[in-house]
């Protein structure tokens, strides 16, 4: 438990101190969301209709931004070797690192969503729905990304491989996240069904992600 807390504290502290974690993701999110109205034109009705999708795509890309450093930084400076030699199971170590990534990279995106929703002319109900689906869906993004981060460390091919590996796997999360948000705003389907599936995706990847990432790292030992 001490090891878990120490690692969580170190990773959050590092992300805040370098300024690379929380702030960079939110700024990227802001830029994506402000660029879209320039591209599709200032039609308020249209922006309101596609708003949830823009917010979801922006959050998805922003959460990917810091993912490639999740394990690579520890691999490069030798920390990963020492983490492997601790008595904490590797699955718990990578889960802790994922939790720290979620807290420093994804949670700020959820918090920034209400403000960015205003930019897109979304109603309070829609903003609430998008923020709630992001809160439920971003753990899946982090845990799927964790597998990619572990593979890119094990394969020694750097960060470029990561988005290629991770983005296709995040498609279901995107679909159900946007579907739930739209259902809350316009209907006709209920909000519950896609939201439940989104939660299931998060819970499933929360279980699968750490085991797959740990297996990838162990395989990389050879």
């Amino acid at each position, binding site marked *: 438990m*001490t*090891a878990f*807390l*120490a*690692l969580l*504290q*170190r990773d959050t*502290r*590092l992300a805040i*101190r*370098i300024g690379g974690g929380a702030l960079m993701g939110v700024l990227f999110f802001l830029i994506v969301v402000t660029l879209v109205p320039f591209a599709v034109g200032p039609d308020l009705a249209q922006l309101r209709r596609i708003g949830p999708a823009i917010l979801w795509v922006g959050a998805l890309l922003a959460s990917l931004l810091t993912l490639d450093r999740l394990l690579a930084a520890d691999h*490069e*400076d*030798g*920390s990963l*070797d*020492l*983490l*492997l*030699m*601790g*008595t*904490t199971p590797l699955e718990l170590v990578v889960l802790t690192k994922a939790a720290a990534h979620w807290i420093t990279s994804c949670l700020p995106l959820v918090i920034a969503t209400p403000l960015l929703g205003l930019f897109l002319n979304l109603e309070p109900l829609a903003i609430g729905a998008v923020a709630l689906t992001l809160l439920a869906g971003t753990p899946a993004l982090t845990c799927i990304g964790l597998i990619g981060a572990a593979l890119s460390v094990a394969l020694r091919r750097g960060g470029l491989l990561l988005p290629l590996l991770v983005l296709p796997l995040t498609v279901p999360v995107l679909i159900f996240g946007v579907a739930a948000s739209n259902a809350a705003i316009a209907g006709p389907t209920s909000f519950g069904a896609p939201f439940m599936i989104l939660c299931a995706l998060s819970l499933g990847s929360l279980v699968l992600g750490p085991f797959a990432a740990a297996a990838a790292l162990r395989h990389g*030992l*050879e």
Partner: protein
Amino acid sequence: MLRLSASGLGCVRGSRTIFDDINLELSSGEVLALVGPNGSGKSSLLRLVAGLLRESAGRIELGGGAPDQTIGEQAHYLGHLDALKPSLTVAENLAFWVHYLGGNVASLPAALAGLGLGSLAELPAAYLSAGQRRRLSLARLVAVPRPIWLLDEPTSALDAAGQEQLAGLMRQHLSGGGLILAATHGPLGIEARELKLGGTA
């Protein structure tokens, strides 16, 4: 009484055989110095014992240790990379490893002072020199007691005083029943048996 032994050990990395049929034996209070030319597999052997590489043949055994822990969990590995985060202070870097590896936090100031880093505790690790980074890595070995030390070029970047301190730490570790496996090109500063890698194999 600990006894670390390996028999018929082989290591293959990237389809290249680094070494094969290495035998070694080491008991509490002993130092084994791994010597040999560059690329003869000294570092690979240390990583094998630490559990960071997989052996292609043979096996490593530890007698008399904690039965529910792997060898790696009872060993300290001091490699070429120092596992320090530049944006954390000296004390924070050490405190993290002490917490993570399960040491006693109260021993932290003494460990830092013992390696001459007491006055640098609040300095970010980014500003440390190579020798100071080495000292900070060594402080981890002192602050978290583990019976096996795996040292890769422990004297590199250390000044004369630092090498003497290291020799003192190693003596203290040995008298406490520990054992040391060290890859080295130069003298360690203490009495050690030698195991030659490469060339003769």
